[in-house]
């Protein structure tokens, strides 16, 4: 049975009765959170925690009624949710009650991927893992065990692995998501953007979204501010081959030809410079290499860009001037998941340069400087030193500007054995069979492994190939590392258990501690109970542990985050200035100013496949959630209405997609719509599950990941492209 130590005691500790407030208003009130109980709320307990349905980590309050998890709502004190969660957070109740949840540790019987399991005790499973890890260590060294991870829950498992000697850890969020953007901005301003990015949408006078589809892409606080921006009727400019929800609320929708966004951004820079509408004072004071930059972008006129992008030169000019008018309270949103074509770091750099021309760095209504909160550490033994280079990007030779580990680099090292063999993978809360491009390569790499351990809450596709599957509890059932949030103000958030584990699932910290014991490094986890660790950190930082347990959030000190508030700008670039021309790029053989390259077009009869998000799902991990799966059971392939007619496709008809490499997808429903360019097709990412243990999600919709067989790698930082595949339609008989 589950650990009774954690279950009952935590419920008792966390139980404060939160009841109905006297008068409800729209504004979050602390009073509502800790108001006295009203008779109607008998049998209800409320526990603050923070969400892990995505990585935004909004603070919420979980309500349990008569022992049953009732609902999860926003914590009014939380600076991200501001009292209102997104639909994934609201649907977290479904994650707890997901009938397809992993229940107990599993050890593979027979071939990998055949999904024949024997259930094991934790002791057996972790013993198996430790034994194989030690074998790898003896034969190859501890550096040969690598980890792929996503989410805050990996903290202690990663710590134990590091204590054991592992050095290769990578999250897909770098090379398969925001990495190119952070590198592009770091090359320009000296710093990446972090998560969430510091976009002051609440105060901006002009918002530009390039591919970002806020509203469908449900970054809670940004969507809230986006809605405010819509209400304030500020000009919004959306660049997207698809008429997204954001596009429908925009003043300008630029239905750009996919692959040509760089041309548009450079043309915008060109307009601002040639018409003298850029922030001259900012450039003068903080810019370096501006003249050389101007030289390079001279040829990128709106007229030239029109031919590339399908956007009228007059529109390019008008939208540039719209931005200039609002300067410095204007944001060209850096986006997320910007790894489209393989030159994405440079495209992000172009976006950074555009923001620089608009002078919005550190400005109200622009990109502010994030504030954090200082939280003391816990005394933990140091990690052993390794003499080996990191396997993904040894000595930063392969990807000179990658400042985080590259997942596909680790995969390559596994495949090639260079710079040294990688023989074991840990995968924590990341469905890398969907996240990494070209599934065939991932499967080939897995074939060479001596050990594959997957730690997750649901039986994802990667779990299907594991040697050992370790079931973690959902975030509602566990403590995790403290969240020290960055934003307009830093804050400290606590995650604490709300419900007991329904089966034998365990929290990450517990798994880590047990594993440490099995590996003979119990001293790496020198506390019996994670509450001990968390409380020590909180109290050492001068904060009130009981208050944190009760309210869930403690705000950090205010500090100036904009020039208007007294912020002093500084740039951590080699020159100490905003680098319009980058010498360090030149030295490494890259374009010092971004250049436009035309990307390959679709072959005849094929359409470029672009992908995006739905507000009720997170990647490929919520489709089996009963609430969220019911809200959106399957994705659809968006096809322009005229194109559909030409191809004889009816709205609602099921088809299969075949990509340029002959890979055929699962059946997917056609959405014939005016909302997309005739040459492009679109689907939401994360569907088409092939693990039959995900019963309600199995073979529902098509998998974008499966069709992403062709990819280009960004030479600057190892990012892998997702929009370089083309599909044609295969009709059913």
């Amino acid at each position, binding site marked *: 049975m589950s650990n009774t130590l954690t279950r009952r005691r935590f419920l008792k500790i966390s139980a404060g009765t939160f009841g109905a407030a006297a008068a409800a208003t729209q504004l979050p009130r602390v009073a509502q959170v800790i108001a006295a109980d009203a008779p109607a709320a008998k049998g209800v307990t409320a526990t603050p925690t923070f969400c892990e349905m995505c990585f935004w980590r909004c603070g919420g309050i979980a309500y349990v009624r008569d022992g049953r998890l009732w609902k999860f709502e926003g914590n009014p004190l939380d600076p991200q949710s501001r009292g209102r969660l997104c639909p994934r957070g609201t649907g977290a109740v479904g994650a707890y009650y997901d009938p397809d949840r992993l229940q107990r540790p599993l050890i593979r019987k027979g071939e990998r991927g055949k999904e024949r399991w024997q259930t094991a005790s934790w002791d057996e499973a972790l013993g198996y893992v430790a034994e194989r890890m030690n074998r790898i260590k003896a034969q190859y060294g501890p550096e040969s065990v690598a980890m792929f991870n996503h989410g805050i829950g990996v903290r202690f498992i990663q710590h134990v692995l590091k204590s054991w000697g592992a050095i290769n850890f990578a999250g897909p969020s770098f090379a398969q998501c925001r990495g190119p953007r952070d590198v592009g901005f770091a090359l320009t301003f000296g710093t990446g953007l972090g998560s969430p990015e510091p976009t002051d949408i609440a105060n901006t006078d002009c918002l530009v979204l390039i591919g970002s589809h806020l509203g469908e892409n449900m970054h809670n606080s940004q969507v809230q501010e986006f809605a405010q921006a819509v209400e304030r009727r500020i000009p919004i400019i959306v660049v997207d081959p698809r008429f997204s929800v954001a596009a429908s609320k925009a003043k300008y929708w630029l239905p750009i030809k996919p692959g040509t966004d760089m041309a548009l951004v450079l043309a915008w820079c060109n307009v601002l410079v040639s018409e003298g509408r850029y922030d001259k004072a900012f450039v003068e004071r903080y810019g370096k290499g501006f003249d050389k930059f101007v030289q390079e972008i001279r040829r990128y006129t709106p007229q030239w860009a029109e031919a590339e992008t399908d956007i009228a030169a007059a529109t390019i000019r008008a939208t540039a001037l719209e931005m200039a008018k609002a300067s410095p309270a204007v944001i060209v949103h850096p986006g997320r998941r910007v790894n489209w074509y393989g030159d994405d770091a440079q495209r992000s750099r172009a976006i950074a340069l555009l923001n620089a021309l608009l002078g919005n760095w550190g400005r109200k209504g622009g990109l502010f400087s994030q504030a954090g909160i200082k939280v003391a550490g816990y005394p933990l033994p140091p990690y052993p030193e390794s003499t080996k280079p990191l396997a993904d990007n040894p000595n930063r030779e392969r990807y000179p500007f990658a400042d985080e580990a590259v997942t596909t680099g680790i995969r390559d090292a596994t495949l090639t054995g260079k710079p040294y063999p990688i023989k074991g993978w840990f995968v924590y809360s990341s469905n890398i069979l969907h996240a990494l491009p070209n599934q065939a390569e991932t499967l080939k790499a897995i074939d060479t492994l001596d050990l594959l351990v997957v730690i997750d809450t649901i039986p994802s596709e990667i779990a299907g190939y594991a040697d050992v599957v370790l079931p973690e509890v959902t975030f509602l059932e566990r403590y995790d590392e403290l969240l020290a949030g960055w934003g307009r103000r830093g804050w400290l958030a606590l995650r604490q258990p709300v419900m007991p584990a329904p089966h034998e699932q365990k929290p990450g910290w517990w798994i880590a501690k047990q594993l440490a014991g099995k590996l003979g490094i119990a001293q790496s986890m020198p506390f019996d109970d994670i509450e001990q660790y968390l409380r020590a950190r909180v109290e050492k930082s001068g904060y009130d542990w009981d208050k944190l347990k009760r309210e869930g959030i403690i705000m950090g000190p205010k500090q100036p985050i904009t020039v208007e508030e007294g912020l002093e700008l500084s740039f951590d670039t080699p020159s100490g200035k905003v680098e319009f021309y980058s010498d360090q790029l030149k030295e490494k053989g890259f374009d010092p100013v971004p250049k436009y390259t035309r990307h390959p077009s679709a072959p005849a009869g094929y359409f470029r496949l672009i992908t995006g998000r739905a507000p009720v799902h997170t990647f490929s991990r919520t489709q089996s959630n009963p609430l969220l799966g019911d*809200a*959106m059971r399957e994705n659809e392939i968006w096809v322009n*209405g005229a194109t559909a007619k030409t191809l004889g496709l009816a709205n609602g008809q099921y088809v299969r997609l075949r990509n340029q490499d002959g890979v055929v997808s699962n059946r997917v429903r056609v959405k014939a*719509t*005016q*909302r997309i360019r005739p040459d492009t097709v679109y689907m939401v990412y994360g569907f088409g599950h092939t693990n039959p243990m995900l019963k309600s999600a199995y073979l529902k919709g098509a998998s974008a990941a499966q069709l992403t067989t062709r990819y280009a790698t960004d030479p600057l930082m190892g990012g892998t492209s997702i929009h370089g595949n083309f599909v044609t339609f295969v009709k059913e008989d």
Partner: protein
Amino acid sequence: MIEITTTRHNPLVDPHLAVWSWEIPLYLFVGGVVAGLMILGGVALLRLARGEDPRGYFSLHAPLSAFMLLNLGMLALFLDLAHKLYVWAVYLTFEPASPMSWGSWVLLLVYPLLLVSALIRLPEAWPWLAQRVPALVRASDVLLASAKTLHLLAWLNVVLGVALGIYTGILLSTMVARPLWNQSILGPLFLVSGLSAGAAALHVLASLLPPQRPAPQGLIGGAIGALVQPLGPQPPEKATADALVRADVGFLVVELLMLGLLLIGLVTATASHAAAFDLLTTGRYAFAFWGVLVVLGICVPLALQALELAHRIPHTVVPAVLVLVGGFTLRWLMVNAGQMSQIVQSAAR
């Protein structure tokens, strides 16, 4: 160009309404036949009271078969309910705005009425029962003796029969959400169709057993005999049978006219009603509407019966059967096409 999407996928409601399947068309049809039987039975009772029809064949046949059919109809209605254990709730109140409430109470009154009406000739028709329960014979005698009582029963049958025959049509016609039904002619249409179906039912019942066979005896045999051959092996008087055919011709003509009014009403009302008109006449229901209902169910039996009356062709049960098919088809069409019918979103805003 307008594209509309919804995330809603509620069972029986999306993609279109489908809450009523076979139970309701069956009940509507049976209810219509029963209504027709009651009205015709009432007329027969009047004639009996005036001494015009000593055998009074239909005066017993009608209420008895109506009683049987009504049970079938009520069963179908009960089976349709989604919250069966609470069916009694309908008799805790009377909701004047709800035709269904009206109908529920009418049905409550119809039952005893049919039983009493059947009682009048029952002992004659079911000797086995008459022997066992002499009280029935006495009661029957009392009823037969009083012309006034017979008159009352007759008019009650007619009035409640009309109520029964018309209320379901009114029920459907009050729903603005279903443009196909949303025509006040629907009530009278159902009533006339019910009269026609009732007449046809009587026809069919009368011809079920050939007159040569002797009347069955005993409990079971007697019961069945009472139903299908109530007053012995003799067929109804020719004059009565002819009157029935003439009446049916009249009913069919009126029904056809009312269908025409329904169509005119739909096509001249709103866009949603016009869309309902299309659904019925040119859409997926076109064959059922024109081919089965109008031609096979009304026009052909109309022509056949007219020819029968003109002695050009012999009497057969064929027109009656076709009328019954038509009657059921009308209900089936209305329930199914009606559930597909909805208020059409205006493309202009």
